């Protein structure tokens, strides 16, 4: 499905564009963090440690005024003291308000984001491509009906629809056992990774329309191509024609769109987690929401996961640009960020 010429274009573009290289590097980094999180993380991301709460990141040791009251000789004495809050190498990015390690949470958060991004996009592609190809290939009433449904779907901003669906359906999540922990390689880590199932389904439901539009467009244009007419005239079935001719031609534009959509879905997932509409226990958006209450005292809790989101999305968007420049499929930009 990927021709040699395509590969050459991709390579040439990658060689020339520093931004494409940066994108690949960022995505590899995030993937690495997500896959090996249990081995890389210095602490269990869910373990609380009140004694080490709100530690600043390395290089940001601060002093803090603490007011404590004590009973001395039957009177209450208010003591104001300056406390040195030291960053420790054991928590390089600091800890949150209950003493959980921010770095570990950022590493594990990559798993949730990427899993939702990839699974959600895969589901949206599957749904969108089936609907789009059917509509474009059979045209007529099937097409009209499916595309009206698509119009109504598009009439809801995806975030609004997602909030409504998740808010009403509840937050189901699926726990998958973590292979590293099972194999005893990282015994202190949480035993399973939690996938926010509703979120995956809902992000797919609100994003499939873009794929349906692209697939339909391809099907419409290829349907009338000569070789397809020829295939039909020698008695190839619709199913064969779609599989052999229509599908391969749709691959490039769908690939490019899917890349952009992974970025969009990661942003959507983080927004949903931020609003509390997610079932994940380890998510960048969730951490940002928690850190928001401690902005004045512990800015890093909300800042670090945000930087992680920006770096991953920048990386994926750069790869999207790279694919688009190299393959030039002429895709409309779908609904993007949040």
């Amino acid at each position, binding site marked *: 499905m990927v021709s040699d010429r395509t590969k050459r274009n991709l390579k040439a573009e990658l060689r020339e564009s520093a931004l494409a290289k940066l994108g690949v590097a960022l995505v590899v980094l995030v993937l690495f963090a997500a896959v090996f999180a249990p081995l890389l993380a210095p602490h269990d991301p869910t373990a609380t440690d009140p004694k080490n709460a709100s530690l600043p990141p390395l290089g940001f040791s601060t002093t803090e005024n603490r007011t404590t009251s004590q009973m001395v000789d039957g009177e209450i004495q208010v003591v104001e003291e300056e406390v040195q809050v030291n960053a420790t190498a054991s928590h390089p990015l600091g800890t949150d308000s209950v003493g959980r390690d921010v770095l570990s949470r950022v590493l594990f958060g990559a798993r949730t984001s990427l899993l939702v991004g990839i699974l959600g996009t895969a589901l949206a592609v599957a749904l969108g491509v089936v609907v789009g190809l059917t509509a474009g290939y059979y045209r007529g009433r099937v097409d009209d009906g499916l595309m009206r449904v698509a119009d109504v779907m598009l009439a*809801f901003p995806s*975030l*609004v629809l997602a909030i409504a669906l998740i808010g009403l359906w509840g937050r189901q999540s699926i726990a998958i056992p973590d292979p590293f922990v099972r194999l005893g390689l990282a015994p202190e880590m949480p035993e399973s990774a939690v996938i926010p199932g509703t979120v995956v389904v809902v992000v797919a439901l609100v994003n499939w329309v873009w794929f349906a539009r692209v697939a339909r467009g391809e099907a419409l244009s290829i349907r009338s191509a000569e070789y397809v007419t020829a295939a039909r005239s020698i008695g190839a079935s619709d199913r064969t024609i779609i599989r052999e001719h229509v599908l391969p031609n749709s691959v490039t534009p769908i690939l490019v769109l899917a890349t952009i959509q992974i970025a969009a879905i990661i942003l959507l997932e983080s927004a949903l987690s931020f609003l509390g509409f997610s079932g994940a226990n380890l998510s960048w958006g969730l951490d940002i929401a928690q850190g928001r209450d401690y902005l004045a005292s512990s*800015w890093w809790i909300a800042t670090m996961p945000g930087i992680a989101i920006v770096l991953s999305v920048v990386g994926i968007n750069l790869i999207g640009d790279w694919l688009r420049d190299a393959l030039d499929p002429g895709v409309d930009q779908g609904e993007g960020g949040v």
Partner: protein
Amino acid sequence: MSLGRFLLRRGVQGILVVWGVVTVVFLLRFISPGDPVNFIAPLDASPELRRRIAEELGLNRPMYVQYAEYLAGLLRGDMGFSFLRGQEASAVVFARLPATIELAVAASVVAVVIAIPLGVISATRRHQPADYGATLFSLVGISTPNFWLGIMLILVAAVQFNLFPTSQRPVGFLEAVGHLVAIEFAGPSVAAPLDVRAFADTLGTWLWHITLPALTLGTYFTALITRLTRSGMLDELGKPYVDAARAKGLPETLVRYRHALRNTLIPVITVLGLQLGTLIGGAVITEAVFAWPGLGTLLISSINVRDWPLIQASLIVIGVSFVLLNIAVDALYASLDPRVDYE
């Protein structure tokens, strides 16, 4: 086809889409778990009381009857009654609407005013520091979740430097205007007309509060429009008509703005039309960050307490605004590009 007929046709299509929206919103209640009665009845309500509540609300009738009544109500402008708030749903929603509109408009103004010049500068100074700066900004801008950006703005501009408030909307734009013109809004008019000072003060307060939310919501669009304007201008400036325009003696200003930019904006508007959903979704989450009392915060709180009439009303208003905005974008597109015969 004339503009009027075009709008009529798009209007009819829009009504069909709105009907679809209303139907989906209606159906949402039936595919959602949880009995609405639970959220209204006291915990120890007897089955008899529960039955009476359901009857009162019409919840025990067949679905199609409820649907028909619902539609009929909507046509009368009746979006139901929120028992939790003790108010008409439409009143609650329309009281919240101005805040959301202000936010979206302010963000769009920020985006257009910054992005178009930035994109043009970037395209006309290719491979210069200004271009690299603009490109980097637009890349990061489209990749930053806006709730996080909002929090970072609060952290820097409000918490650290105390330049702007962290949240709230004490006054609305219309209240400021109310000092100039006697208009009735949400109750009796509070000020005597033509009070310029009060107008300036109120407007200042309003601006002071809306700055951070508008920047938060506007950044993604600023980045996106900058990117689109830049690449569009580069395309257009390479076309022969640009050389021809220069050859007839037009100063560069006219060549850029009257010729190249005009044609650049045609595709930019198409993409923006596709991105309207992001604007509305972004508004919802921006409101959540800044406790901005708009439709977004209303929707989220209503979902949390299952206040069905309010959920439905805010979804319908959002859906309808979206359809209207899309028609407006299409009309704008058609008015810019003579080759589109409103088709």
